């Protein structure tokens, strides 16, 4: 019984240490955000292809297409804002790093909301939904 408890405590310490070690520093945060943008770009492109195919088959109404196209424009605008914020963050001094990181986080959330709206719209037409 003691051995089992010891193992559990050691395991907890190990996990805590690993999680602390994973705490994002600037490079990690930049890398993670960069990868998120790439992933969302793929989802955006795939959504566009699907919608265009559906539009050709007259499955998607003009109204839905217009909504999706506007969301796509919003996505691209929000993407620019995010990357600009990310460039400023990457070039931050230690003093304004946190403030700039908050701006990036807000911009990333905005992009995430837009791409999820696009996916929600596209996925209503699909048996196998696109996921990110």
């Amino acid at each position, binding site marked *: 019984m003691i051995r*089992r408890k010891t*193992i*559990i405590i050691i*395991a*907890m310490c*190990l*996990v*805590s240490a*690993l*999680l602390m070690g*994973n705490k*994002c520093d600037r*490079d*990690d945060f*930049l*890398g*993670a955000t*960069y*990868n998120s*943008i*790439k992933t969302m*770009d793929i989802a*955006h*492109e795939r*959504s*566009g*292809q699907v*919608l*265009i195919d559906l*539009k050709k088959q007259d499955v998607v109404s003009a109204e839905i*297409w217009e909504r*999706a*196209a506007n969301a*796509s*424009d919003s996505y*691209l605008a929000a*993407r*620019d804002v995010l*990357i*600009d914020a*990310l*460039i400023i963050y*990457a*070039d931050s001094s230690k003093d304004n790093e946190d403030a700039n990181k908050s701006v990036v986080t807000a911009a990333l959330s905005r992009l995430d909301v837009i791409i999820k709206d696009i996916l929600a719209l596209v996925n209503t037409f699909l048996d196998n939904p696109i996921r990110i």
Partner: protein
Amino acid sequence: MDGTFLITIAELVLKHGVPTVIDLIKTWQVDTSNISIQDLEDLKKQKPKSFRDMLDDDS
């Protein structure tokens, strides 16, 4: 992170051993390769096409 999560991890350690669980945890890590400002500027230039542009290209 709550206690249930830690207990789950502890159970995984007991069941599968420390190396397996460490491998599992490593898969949670993001790619930490160094992203330079140039990489970000390149990413900005690699702007995806809008749905309208994709449709124009397609027709």
